[in-house]
């Protein structure tokens, strides 16, 4: 466990140099989305959604979607860089660290980034009056869980591909459609049945659902337990896949 | 005019900094001509001006009888350039690198493919034709760059530090290929800060320092004019080699003190070494060797080439 902390420390120290530009893209861009869609398009959604004003309806979804995007962003190019460009994983592997420590430390950093972005966004949403309930704080652990469902799995993918072009492919074919069709901007109930099942199979829609229940102060019902367990299953599977891929790359 | 390169008072300035400070050069067809000097001597700037990618700041320059300012594309059509840092295309295969490059000269695709295949054989990369560039070793990349420079059957090939950064075996392979080109009558112009490279490849060279030419001639002529036949290298078991300089006075023509050793410039090395021992000086190591361009450079500038 402790060796992972050293790895986390390494990533945190590195982050001190780049936090400004990353804070920019992981906070300012979602904020603009909130303004553009939540307020802009929202002003044309006269009836609201499910009896809720559009801004309040879409903001929890946007927070979950931001958490997911930060998790994926942190587990793609940075991981590729640690393997291929800067090769810091190999430097770490030369120290008395096991692949699982290296992975664990890095994933911890990714989750830190997810949590920080979600927290910042939550505060801004509060200022815009987009939160309706004290339960909104639960958005933070939900974001963390969603990040954990995605980050290790995507890190496993990154560790397995040969060029960074496949990362662009992941973003365009998986991350973008997932963000657009997981009930962030419109209810997934209006998707055709087949697509709805795809959306339900991906983790983001559950993160959106849970976050929305939290900020609107609704009772999510017993289904919420299953949603949490489903996200946990993704996290565990992702962890095992990633440790396997990391061992393959680092122990030669 | 039968010089391929003709420069008079050639100058290159970057702002306040003068990289090339008025040099005169003539390179004749069929010769291998070298610019020798340490880093920052102005060799690369000179090469870029000759390659018509850097306009001269002053003086006269004619390449293949043309004016680089006006006829850049026409001149470059007949040049082959091998830059100091390989700029091969990492997204293309070895063969595609040559074929796409040939297209920039307007060489028809079919002719380009034939020529590329011949050149790959020439630089002994025929078996790697379908491989990407990245996995190639440094020496292979350099040979590929040399092949690329030959794609348009140039009248003049410019090689900027052709073997810098290569291991000894790879260097010899590059030298051997360049020597073949020279035998085929290709005019080579190269820069180097390696003495052995200049001695191996150049018929004639200029020694550059601080943007100026400090000497000119064949390697043999330069050594004869600026050094002695042999050199004795002595290392003494002390931090300050200079304390021994006085005690060596009178042996040979000249004594040079370097931080880690003392050089004696003499006609007869073994005789000089006997004299050193007769004066009961006991160096921890000693070596007698032939004079090289390194010694010429040291003599001309008071500095060693590779710091």
């Amino acid at each position: 466990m402790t060796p992972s902390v050293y790895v986390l420390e390494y990533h945190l120290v590195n982050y001190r140099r780049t936090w400004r530009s990353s804070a920019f893209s992981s906070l300012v861009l979602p904020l603009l989305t909130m303004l553009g869609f939540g307020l802009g398009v929202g002003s044309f959604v006269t009836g609201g959604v499910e009896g809720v004003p559009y801004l309040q309806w879409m903001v929890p979804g946007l927070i979950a979607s931001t958490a997911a995007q930060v998790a994926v962003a942190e587990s793609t190019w940075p991981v590729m860089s640690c393997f291929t460009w800067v090769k810091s994983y190999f430097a770490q592997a030369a120290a008395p660290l096991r692949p699982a420590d290296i992975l664990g430390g890095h994933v911890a950093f990714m989750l830190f980034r997810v949590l920080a972005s979600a927290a910042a966004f939550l505060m801004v949403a509060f200022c815009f009056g987009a939160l309706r309930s004290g339960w909104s704080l639960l958005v933070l652990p939900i974001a963390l869980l969603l990040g954990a469902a995605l980050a290790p799995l995507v890190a496993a993918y990154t560790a397995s591909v040969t060029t960074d072009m496949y990362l662009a492919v992941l973003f365009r074919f998986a991350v973008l459609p997932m963000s657009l069709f997981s009930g962030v901007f419109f209810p997934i109930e209006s998707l055709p049945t087949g697509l709805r099942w795809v959306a339900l199979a991906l983790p983001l829609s559950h993160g959106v659902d849970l976050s929305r229940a939290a900020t609107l102060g609704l009772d999510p019902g017993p289904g919420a337990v299953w949603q949490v367990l489903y996200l946990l299953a993704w996290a565990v599977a992702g962890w095992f896949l990633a440790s396997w891929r990391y061992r393959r790359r680092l122990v030669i | 005019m039968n010089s391929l390169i003709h420069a008079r008072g050639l100058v290159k300035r970057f702002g306040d900094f003068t990289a090339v400070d008025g040099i005169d050069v003539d390179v004749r067809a069929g010769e291998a001509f070298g610019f020798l000097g340490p880093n920052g001597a102005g060799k690369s700037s000179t090469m870029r001006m000759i390659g018509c990618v850097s306009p001269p700041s002053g003086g006269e320059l004619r390449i293949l009888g043309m004016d680089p300012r006006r006829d850049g594309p026409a001149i470059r059509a007949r040049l082959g350039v091998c830059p100091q840092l390989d700029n091969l295309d990492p997204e293309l295969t070895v063969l595609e690198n040559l074929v796409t490059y040939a297209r920039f000269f307007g060489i028809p695709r079919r002719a380009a493919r034939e020529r590329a295949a011949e050149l790959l054989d020439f630089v002994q990369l025929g078996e790697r034709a379908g491989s990407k560039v990245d996995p190639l070793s440094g020496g292979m990349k350099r040979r590929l760059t040399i092949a690329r420079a030959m794609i348009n059957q140039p009248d003049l090939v410019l090689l900027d530090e052709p073997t810098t950064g290569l291991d000894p075996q790879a260097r010899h392979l590059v030298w051997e290929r360049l020597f073949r080109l020279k035998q085929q009558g290709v005019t080579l112009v190269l820069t180097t800060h390696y003495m052995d490279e200049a001695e191996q490849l150049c018929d004639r060279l200029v020694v550059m320092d601080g943007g100026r030419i400090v000497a000119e001639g064949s390697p043999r002529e330069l050594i004869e004019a600026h050094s002695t036949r042999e050199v004795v290298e002595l290392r003494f078991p002390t931090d300050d080699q200079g304390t021994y300089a006085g005690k060596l006075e009178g042996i040979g023509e000249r004594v040079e003190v370097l931080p880690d050793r003392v050089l004696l410039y003499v006609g007869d090395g073994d005789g000089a070494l006997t004299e050193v021992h007769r004066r009961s000086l006991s160096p921890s190591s000693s070596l007698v060797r032939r004079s090289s361009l390194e010694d010429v450079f040291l003599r001309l500038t008071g500095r060693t080439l590779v710091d």
Partner: protein
Amino acid sequence: MLPRLLPALDGMARRSAAVAGRNVAALRTAYWLVLLGGLLEPVFYLFSIGVGVGALVGEIPLPGGRLVGYAEFVAPAMLASSAMSGALTETTFNFFGKMKFMRLYEGMLATPVRPIEIALGELSWAMLRGSLYSAAFLVIMVAMDLTTPLRALAAFPASVLVGFAFGALGMTVSTLIRGWQDFDMISAGMFVLFLFSGTFIPATAYPDVLRWIVEVTPLYRSVDLIRGISLGSLGFVQLLDVLYLLAMLVGGLFVAGRRMERLLCR
């Protein structure tokens, strides 16, 4: 004069084509996938926002007061945005990568190829790619009954013009870039334009000052032009849009060529 000029132009075209040809030779499996992804991106947005959110919005009023379906309103904006982002990505990220990272242009400049020919070659490649995207997207628009085939045909050259204008702008921008950190700014700039250029709601919905700012941005002019064509509501304003984009194209190419000369031929 003309007999001298023609071979010169011919050589220029040939060498520019060779520069573009390099990119064709570099097409690989993964790159094809990235290209396909670029094609799908506006389609994803069209379905998510145009259709999905459109069901919540219903109809939206044009400046003239005419009501149109939300998907009809959003689709031309997605076309213009994808022409913009395709052209900017190719001429900034990829162009900069080739210039600084792979140092490809140094190699090219040792041949008879001149800086302006590199600029033209890269731009025509970006445009070839962008035109394919636009054509495919227009086919989808017609198939979804968001415009008529005739209007789609007319919108095609307009979208090519949009691509060229942004391509020229991108080349100028990439000669000013200092390093990778500036790309965050470019992405952010593109995203801001994408969100606020009258793409998802009419510019008239903004407060006055904001609206004026929005209306002078290049993406707004592009959206205005293509939407005018695809919805069949053309006027003098669209002529202004065309002039605006032409000026951007010529100005961008001129500045980019000069700056490249200075950057690469020092």
